[in-house]
C-alpha cells in the first residue's frame, strides 16, 4: 500500500513537472517607476513591453520560448530600484533586463546586474562606470540631441539669444544641463540663469521671474512629467511672452502645456508623435507595425515611450536569434554585432564601443495647437 502511494505520488509529480518544463520561458526583468515622478513614462514603457511580448509570443516566442515579463515598481526611487533588481536577479532569475527611465535607479543597481552577467536594455542613459556600460544598452537618443534641436531652433528661427535653464535633479537632466551649458556658445546663446527644481515642487514662478529679470526670453525645460505644465502655467500667470522649450515627453504632458501657452510652447517631438507627417520609408513602416497593436489595447494614448520599449524587446529578440543562445554573455555579444536595426524611435546601431544605439538625431521641433501636434522645422 505504501509502495503504491509512493508510485502514485511520483507519477503525479512527474505529470505536474512535465508541462512546466515544456513551458520554459525567457524571463525579462522590468524595473519601472510605476509610481513617483517617472510614472507617466515608465507605465507607458511597461505597457509597450507587454504589447511587444504579446506580439512575439503570438509568433511562437523566441527560439521556442515564450517571453515572460517580470515587472517590479521601483517607485522612481534609486533605493527601491536596487531592491527590485536584486529580487529579480536572485528570486526570479531573469535572463535580461529591459528597464524603464529612472536613470538613478538603473545606475544604483548596475553593479549587481554586472556581477550577475545579465544584459540591461535601458530607457535611461548609460551608467557611468565602464564595466557597467559593457552590460548596458540605451534606447534613449543621446541627451545632446534634445539640447541641440532646441538651440538650433532658437538660432535659426528666433532672435532669442538669452535662455534660462530649468532642470530636475535626475542624472539624465543633469547631463542634459551640462551639455546645454557646454553647447550654448556654439549657437551664440547665453545661459544667464540655470536653476534646478524638485519634481514635486508646487511653483516655479520665482525661478521664471529670475530668468526674466536676467533677460532670458526662453526657458529650456529639462525634465519629465507635470512640472512642464506647472512651468507653462507660471509663465502665463506672470504675463510673460517667454518661450518654453520642453524635453521629449508624453503627449499627455504636452496637451495641457500647449493649451496653456499655445505656440509659446515648443517641444522636442519623437518620430511616433509626428507619425502622420513622416515621409514613407522604413521608419514609418516600423511605427505602422507597432501602432495598430498599441492602439488596439490603449486607444490614442501616446506611443512614444511604449514604442521605445517595443524597440528594446525587438532588438533583444534579434540578438537571441543571432546568438542562438539565451546566455547573457552571448546575447550581449550579439547585440553589438547586429546590423543597424530600424525601430520606432530611430535606427539603433550598437557596437562594442557604441552602447547608445541612436546615432542620428531623430527629433523634430513641434507645437501643440488646436488639439494637434504641428511640426515646426
Amino acid at each position, binding site marked *: 500500500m505504501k509502495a503504491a502511494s509512493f508510485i502514485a505520488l511520483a507519477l503525479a509529480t512527474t505529470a505536474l513537472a512535465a508541462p512546466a518544463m515544456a513551458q520554459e520561458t525567457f524571463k525579462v526583468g522590468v524595473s519601472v517607476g510605476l509610481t513617483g515622478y517617472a*510614472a507617466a513614462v515608465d507605465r507607458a514603457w511597461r505597457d509597450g513591453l507587454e504589447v511587444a511580448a504579446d506580439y512575439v509570443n503570438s509568433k511562437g516566442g523566441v527560439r521556442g520560448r515564450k517571453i515572460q515579463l517580470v515587472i517590479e515598481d521601483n517607485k522612481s526611487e534609486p533605493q527601491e530600484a536596487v531592491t527590485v533588481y536584486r529580487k529579480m536577479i536572485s528570486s526570479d532569475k531573469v535572463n535580461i533586463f529591459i528597464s524603464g527611465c529612472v536613470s538613478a535607479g538603473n545606475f544604483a543597481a548596475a553593479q549587481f546586474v554586472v556581477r550577475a552577467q545579465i544584459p540591461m536594455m535601458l530607457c535611461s542613459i548609460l551608467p557611468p562606470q565602464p564595466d557597467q556600460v559593457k552590460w548596458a544598452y540605451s534606447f534613449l537618443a543621446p541627451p545632446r540631441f534634445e539640447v541641440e534641436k532646441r538651440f538650433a531652433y532658437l538660432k535659426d528661427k528666433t532672435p532669442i539669444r538669452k535662455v534660462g535653464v530649468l532642470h530636475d535633479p535626475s542624472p539624465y537632466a543633469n547631463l542634459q544641463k551640462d551639455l546645454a551649458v557646454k553647447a550654448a556658445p556654439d549657437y551664440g546663446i547665453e545661459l544667464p540663469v540655470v536653476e534646478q527644481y524638485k519634481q514635486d515642487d508646487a*511653483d516655479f514662478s520665482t525661478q521664471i521671474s529670475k530668468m526674466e529679470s536676467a533677460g532670458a526670453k526662453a526657458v529650456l525645460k529639462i525634465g519629465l512629467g507635470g512640472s512642464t505644465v*506647472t512651468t507653462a*502655467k*507660471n509663465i502665463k500667470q506672470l*504675463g510673460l511672452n517667454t518661450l518654453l522649450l520642453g524635453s521629449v515627453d508624453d503627449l499627455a*504632458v504636452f496637451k495641457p502645456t500647449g493649451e496653456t501657452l499655445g505656440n509659446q510652447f515648443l517641444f522636442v517631438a519623437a518620430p511616433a508623435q509626428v507619425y502622420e507627417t513622416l515621409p514613407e520609408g522604413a521608419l514609418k513602416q516600423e511605427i505602422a507595425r507597432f501602432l495598430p497593436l498599441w492602439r488596439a489595447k490603449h486607444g490614442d494614448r501616446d506611443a512614444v515611450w511604449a514604442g521605445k520599449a517595443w524597440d528594446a524587446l525587438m532588438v533583444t529578440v534579434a540578438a537571441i536569434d543571432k546568438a542562438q543562445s539565451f546566455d547573457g554573455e552571448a546575447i550581449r555579444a550579439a547585440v553589438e554585432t547586429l546590423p543597424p536595426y530600424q525601430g520606432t524611435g530611430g535606427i539603433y546601431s550598437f557596437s562594442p564601443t557604441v552602447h547608445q544605439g541612436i546615432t542620428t538625431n531623430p527629433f523634430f521641433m513641434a507645437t501643440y495647437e488646436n488639439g494637434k501636434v504641428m511640426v515646426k522645422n
Partner: protein
Amino acid sequence: MLDLSFLGQTILNGLSVGCIYGLIGIGFCVIYNASGIVNFAQGAFVMLGGMITYVLVSLNVPLILAAAITIICVALVGVIIERIVVRPLWDRKATMFVMILATLAAQIVIERATLIVVGDQPKSLPVFTDLPPLRLFGIAIGYQTLWIFGTSIVLIIALGLFFQKTLVGRAMRACAINREAAALQGIQVSHMLALSFALSAGLGAIAGILVTPTQFTAFNVGTPFAISGFIAAIVGGFGRPFGAFLGGLTLGLAQALAVYSLGSGLKNMAALSVLLLFLFLRPSGILGSAK
C-alpha cells in the same frame, strides 16, 4: 543692483504658495484639535479637490458647480475615512503612531484608487479668470493669485467666526481644550470628530481647487502638499488654525526667498534651516502650541 520688482515678485509668489500650505496646515489643526490625531491623509484631500473638479469640468459641468460638488464629495470622503479608519482605532484607544500609520495607509489607498480610475497622466484646470495679470510697480499679479489670496482670507475669517460664534464651533474648541470635560458637558465628541474630518477634507479640497489651475494634479501630488502643510502647522503652533496659516505663509516666503538668493537647488534646505532655527528659538511655533 537690487532688482526691486523681482524681489517684490518673489515675495508675492512665495505668499501665494504659502496660502495653499496654510490652508492644508489648518486642515491638520482642525482634526488635531478635535481628536488629538495627526491626519496624514490630508494631502489626498488636496489631490482629490483638483482631480474631482477636473473630471467634472471635463464632463462640461460649470467650474463653480464642479467646485461646490467636489468640496461636498471630498468632505464626505473625510467622513468615510473617519468612520472606517479612524473611529474604530479611536474607540480602541490606539496610540498616536497607529493613527498616523492608519491615515498614511488611507492616503495610499486613495492615491491608488485615483490612479486606477483616472490614470497616471497629469491633469490641470483652467484659471478661474483668464485675463492677463495686473501690473503694479513691475510686479505681475495673476488673477489666480488674487483668487488664492481672496479665498484664503475669506476662509480664515469664516473659520474664526465659526469657532468663536457658533455652538458647533465652540463645541469643537471645547473638545480641543479638554475632550473628557467636553463630553461631561454633553458634547458628542465623536460627532465633533466626524465634523472635523469633513471640515478638514473640505479645506483640503478648496486648496486643491485653488492651486490646480497654477500647476497640475495627478494621483501622487498629495504627499508633498501634506508635508508642506504639516510643516506649516508646526511652524504656526500645532493646533492653532490661524497659526498654521501664518506658518504656511512663512514657509512659502522662506522657500521663495531661498530661490531668490541662493537658487532653487538649495530652496528646501535653506528654507527649512531658517524654520528650524526659528523653532529652536520658539519651539511652540509662531502663536504657541494649542496644547
